[in-house]
């Protein structure tokens, strides 16, 4: 076994991890990976780790984890087999062997791939091709609507802006004050503001009248001529003449 010693002189960073080293060690057994002696492999690895430790090489954690795992595997393989041992050491050894086979297969495949006739190394493309041209002809996509709309947009942007406000039925504040004054003259009790609105008018006129009438009562209250009350927010508003 001491004949393997030269292997260990290879520097640490020459190995891409413990599995890489294990595969290299397995190759030294010079047998098909399927017939490899896992026990011999484990011993080689552990010896390698020992030497690295003796040389005071810093070992990365995964190397030590692998060493611990292999040490466990070794003892499990050597001890008398307990039927209910879990995990089964034979299975662990088989898994290791399968992993080595797979790494070996891919290493081999990579080498065969690299050995193929490769463009730029073994075969060459034309050095100075004329090249193919695509002449792009723009086909403009615009319809009549786009055209008309564009003109409308330009015109709208540059023509003087004209605002036409349609006439709407409105009750002015003056009219509202007059109405409220006149109607209050005949009432003494609290009266809802709604009672002051024209009853049979157009809805939009009624809404205008409501706003104007409310303002009118505020104005009359400010002049000290009416009192206003509202029991709750958004509740009905009542008005009473101050006698």
């Amino acid at each position, binding site marked *: 076994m001491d004949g393997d010693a030269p292997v260990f002189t290879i520097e640490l960073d020459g190995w891409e991890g413990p599995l890489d080293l294990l595969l290299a060690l397995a190759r030294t057994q010079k047998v098909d990976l399927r017939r490899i002696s896992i026990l011999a492999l484990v011993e080689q690895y552990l010896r390698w780790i020992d030497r690295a430790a003796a040389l005071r090489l810093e070992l990365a954690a995964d190397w030590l984890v692998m060493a611990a795992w292999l040490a466990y595997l070794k003892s499990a393989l050597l001890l008398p087999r307990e039927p209910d041992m879990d995990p089964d050491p034979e299975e662990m050894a088989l898994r290791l062997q399968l992993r080595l086979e797979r790494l070996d297969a891919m290493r081999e495949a990579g080498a065969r791939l690299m050995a193929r006739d490769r463009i730029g190394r073994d075969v*060459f*493309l*034309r*050095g*100075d091709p*004329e*090249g*193919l*041209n*695509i*002449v*792009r*002809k*723009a*086909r*403009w*996509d*615009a*319809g*009549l609507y*786009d*055209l*008309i*709309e*564009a*003109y*409308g*947009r*330009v*015109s*709208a*942007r*540059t*023509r003087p*802006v004209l605002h036409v406000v349609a006439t709407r039925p409105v009750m002015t504040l003056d009219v509202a004050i007059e109405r409220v004054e006149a109607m209050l003259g005949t009432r003494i009790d609290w009266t809802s503001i709604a009672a002051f609105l024209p009853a049979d008018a157009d809805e939009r006129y009624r809404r205008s009248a409501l706003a104007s009438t409310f303002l009118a009562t505020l104005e009359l209250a400010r002049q000290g001529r009416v009192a206003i009350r509202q029991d709750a927010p958004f509740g009905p508003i009542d008005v009473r003449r101050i006698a």
Partner: protein
Amino acid sequence: MTDPFVRAVEAVLFASETPMTVPMIAAYVGDGDVRAALATIEADHAGRGFGLVRRGEHWHFETAPDLAHFLRRDRDESRRLSRAAIETLAIIAYHEPATRADIESIRGVQISKGTIDVLLAAGWVRPAGRREVPGRPLQYTTTQAFLDHFGLNTRRDLPGIEDLRAAGLLDPIDDAFASVLESGDDSD
């Protein structure tokens, strides 16, 4: 099977990034009659899609000159006209003949040179003489191709300002939107 030396010369010329002289070729392929190989290759490719060509002392492969039209391909690309281009086209159509200054005064912004070029390239407008004012600016009008493309018989088929107003196309966007909302209320 071609002669090995001829094959080597052929491969070196094919892979070269520049035309090569006989000594340049010899530096790759070694001893042999390069000139004889070139003559063989030239004869072998006569009448094919590409061939060996000599320019002065340099040799190279090139595609046959009579096939040049196959090496280019036209592709129609449907593209939207830019907002500036469609507005410029509309102004020319409504106001023709229109000068660049007319267009800019109506659009309210300057137009870039490319904008009218696009319309000229599309064949929709054409120059139509100069206006006899200081500076003699070029005027533009629309073309028959313009009428054809937009499905118009004459320019008079373009809707007038009153039509546009009726269609709501003169309303600023917000007003148009509001009028849709209002009409929605009425239908309730």
